[in-house]
């Protein structure tokens, strides 16, 4: 299958390992990955902070860039959530019904990685090998906006060598919330403290999730504590094989 990668600005700039892993995983599974040029940012941060006017050109750019492709994947639940649930709204609020219709179309063929693997490609065992103790944090937008359910866990359970441990109160928000982490830094930190407490309780070496943004927040906190627990994107675990390391 020919799959267009919507890399997301955060993964592109700060967490390319997650994006590279997405490419390597899909290629290993026999698919062709293309990277549509001209893509930048979906505008989620703008929409969620109250800047829909400023987000409009980004929505336009995203829709224009990805409209020609049949299947689009992103290594981020919240960016997919924005594309699927917010782009058409931004277009409608701007009075552009044509853009709204095209945005709906792009949204309907854009998938978060675990959705693509399980729902579209029909695969739960990607042949990965990852000999580490891992706990999985289901990010809010994956869980409640996209309803990915246990798809990421089904994928993780099939990874060879993994020691997968349940995260207590897993469905509680980690406190990231985009600009919430800055505008309400204290409350965000209080939420993070509890999330980190639960991660540490599991004794895991690695905390994984489907969103680099939440992982940046959780990982930033765990690093500040010198906890020794790493955050690793789901794609990196699924891309790992016995002949590779996750850093490849």
């Amino acid at each position, binding site marked *: 299958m020919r799959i267009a990668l919507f*890399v997301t*600005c955060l*993964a*592109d*700039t*700060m*967490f*390319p*390992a997650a994006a*590279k892993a997405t*490419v390597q995983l899909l290629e290993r599974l026999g698919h062709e990955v293309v*990277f549509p*040029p*001209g893509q*930048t*940012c979906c*505008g989620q*941060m*703008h*929409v*969620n*902070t*109250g*800047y*829909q006017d*400023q*987000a409009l*050109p*980004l929505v336009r*750019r995203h829709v224009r860039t990805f409209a020609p492709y049949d299947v689009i994947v992103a290594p981020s639940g919240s960016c997919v959530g924005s594309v699927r649930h*917010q782009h058409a709204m931004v277009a409608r*609020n701007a009075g552009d019904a044509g853009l709204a219709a095209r945005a709906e179309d792009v949204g309907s063929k854009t998938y978060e990685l675990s959705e693509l693997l399980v729902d579209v490609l029909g695969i739960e065992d990607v042949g990965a090998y990852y000999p580490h103790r891992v706990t999985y944090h289901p990010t*809010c*937008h994956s869980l*409640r*906006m996209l309803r990915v359910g246990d798809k990421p866990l089904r994928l993780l359970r099939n990874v060879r060598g993994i020691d997968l441990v349940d995260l207590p109160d897993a469905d509680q*928000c980690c*406190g990231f*919330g*985009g600009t*919430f*982490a*800055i*505008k*309400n*830094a*204290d*409350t*965000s*930190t*209080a*939420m*993070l403290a509890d999330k980190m407490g639960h991660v540490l309780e599991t004794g895991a070496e690695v905390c994984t999730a489907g969103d680099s943004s939440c992982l*940046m*927040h959780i*990982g*930033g*906190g765990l*690093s*500040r504590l010198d906890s020794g627990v790493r955050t690793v994107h789901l794609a990196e675990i699924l891309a790992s094989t016995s002949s590779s390391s996750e850093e490849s």
Partner: protein
Amino acid sequence: MTTFLGMPTTAPRGVGNLRGDEPFPAAAHKALQDGQLRRNLGHATTTIRRKSGAVIGELPDWQELREAGSTLKANTMARLPELLDQLEANVTAAGGVVHWAADANEANEIVTDLVKATGHDRVIKVKSMATQEIGLNEALEAAGIAAVETDLAELIVQLGNDKPSHILVPAIHRNRAEIREIFLREMPGVDPALTDEPAELAGAARRYLRETFLSTKVAVSGANFAIAETGTLAVLESEGNGRMCLTLPETLITVMGIEKLVPTWRDLEVFLQLLPRASTGERMNPYTSMWTGVTPGDGPQNFHLVLLDNGRTAVLADEVGRQALHCIRCSACLNVCPVYERTGGHAYGSVYPGPIGAILSPQLTGVEDNASLPYASSLCGACFDACPVKIDIPSILVHLRNEVPHPRAEKAAFGAVAYTMDHPALYTRAQHAAKLSRHAKKLPPPLNGWTASRDLPEPPAETFRDWWAKR
């Protein structure tokens, strides 16, 4: 008869309890330092969440019930003027008197005048959000009328000269030692040997309230529902104290937001299933009192219904935000909210805290007056899932964030970022500049909020697109 309530205006300033003294982040900062508060809230919300989840899980048709509740409310809002007229006609026909209050000031004036006309200087109160919203107790006090809260938790809040911090359990922030101190200090005729045993504390309140019930001739209540087709009012509570207020006095004055209507008796079937399971985690509400106007020889012989707008018509005019009027005040969204669980209700500054407060208060007051509230959420979406009438709170938060006045510097920054993101060459240059932040352990304001508790990630050696270009 048609009724003209005037142009939709927001709740007036200087009266009532919809506006805080400081923005949410500042108030939250203080609340987060209160260990007792954090512990009480964590314990209470976890307990209610678990209980509610269990009884909701018993119903195979919970999702259908939510859908029915949502649809009934949407239908009611679409027909609100005619239904209000119908309610007025039916309450009047049953011997009640209906008053229309455009805002908090009018409502307070109407109730104060009605109490004065009875010649009494004390009223007993059923727990009510609407009267808290308009600051009725303060208005009555200014007119020399004492208002006694009879819901146990509201009484604790009132005696403590405090503010409610939760819609359903307003004294959630207090522990039993604090309650004992408040009772000893403020409760008339209290036994000085009172201990902090819950049964003793409840006993002290019962003795005090029984005397008050039997000697007070005027009661003020809110209402959970009003049935347009019959003119019937309904109050749901757990203690029975509300029923005392609704049945013992000579005069009953009910203050109700105009959105509390349901069209028919049958509609209550849906809400009486939704509300107790979502709010207290009970299968059936303990005390459900209903009355229709006046019944000769039984209960209050004078009944007044004050229909309150106070910004609701303005909310109704907003196509996205109007869903907030569907709220049945169950507080399920508070109990699942990770922000509320850590800050408590006072940080929201309004009598409506938590996720519902973050969308309702700014709409009632106009967003300028509660500009920080729509941001008091990580948009995690737990509230939407918990809401028994399916109010899409996250979407309304995003909508309101788009309406609030933005700080000039922030607006300029977001504009610059959007411009950069819309020009791939600039974007690529900015990506490379981001690498320079490699050694930044502390970011400048306002971004220092991040580095206060979190390390920045190490910028990668190359961006994804650089890697891709080299493949």
